[in-house]
C-alpha cells in the first residue's frame, strides 16, 4: 500500500486526510497522482507541491516503493 496524506485546504477538498493506494510493481509518482486527480479534481486544482517520505519531490517520474508516504500539498501559508 501507498499511504497518501492530505493537509489543510487539500484535505478539506478531498474530504479526508488520508487515502490508501494499492502498490503495483513499477509504479511511479505520476501514476498515483493521476489516479487521485480523477477522483478529487477540486483538490488537485490547488496542489502545488509533492513530497515522498517527507522530502520535496519535483520529478513526477520517481519510482515508488511499497509503503511509501506520498503527500500532495497546496501552497504553504505558515509563519
Amino acid at each position, binding site marked *: 500500500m501507498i499511504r497518501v*496524506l492530505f*493537509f*489543510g*485546504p487539500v*484535505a*478539506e477538498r478531498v474530504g479526508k486526510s488520508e487515502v490508501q493506494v494499492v502498490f503495483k510493481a513499477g509504479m511511479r509518482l505520476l501514476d498515483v497522482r493521476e489516479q487521485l486527480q480523477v477522483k478529487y479534481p477540486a483538490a488537485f486544482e490547488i496542489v502545488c*507541491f509533492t*513530497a515522498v517520505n*517527507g*522530502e*520535496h519531490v519535483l520529478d513526477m517520474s520517481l519510482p515508488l516503493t511499497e509503503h511509501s508516504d506520498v*503527500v500532495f*500539498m*497546496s*501552497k*504553504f*501559508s*505558515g*509563519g
Partner: protein
Amino acid sequence: MKDAVRIQLEDFSQDEEIAALRASSKRMGGIATFIGCARDFSEGREVTQISFDAYGSMAVGEMNKLRDEATKKFALLGVRIVHRVGVVGAGEQIVFVAAGAEHRAPALQACQWLIDELKQRVPIWKKEITPQGEAWLTPHP
C-alpha cells in the same frame, strides 16, 4: 532543555528562547529575532482565531534544514525556530525565529532569510476563523 527547532501547540517565551540561544556561545554579539503574530484583521475581514494544520514530521525536517543552511550561509553561532500549530487567538504569537552571530549584520540578514524561507518551504497551512465563517488562506504568489 527544549529543542532548538520545534512545532508545538502552546505559546513560547522569548526570554526562554534567547537564554537557550545565548547559552550556546559567549562569542555572540548580535541576536536578531522575528515574531509573527495573529492579526485581528486580514484583507478587510475581522479575524478572531487562526487554525494551523501542519505536516509535522516534514515541517520539523524542513525547519532543521533551514537551521543548518542558515548556520553555514551566515556563519551563525545559534538558531532557534518555533512554530505553533492548533488554534491561535487574534493578537497571539505564531512563529519565532532567532539567529545569533558574532556581529549584527549576519544575525539580521539570517533572521530575514529564515522567515522568508520558512514561509516558502515549511508545510504548514493557516485557516482564518472570522465571524462570517472559516477560510484557508491562499498565499499571494
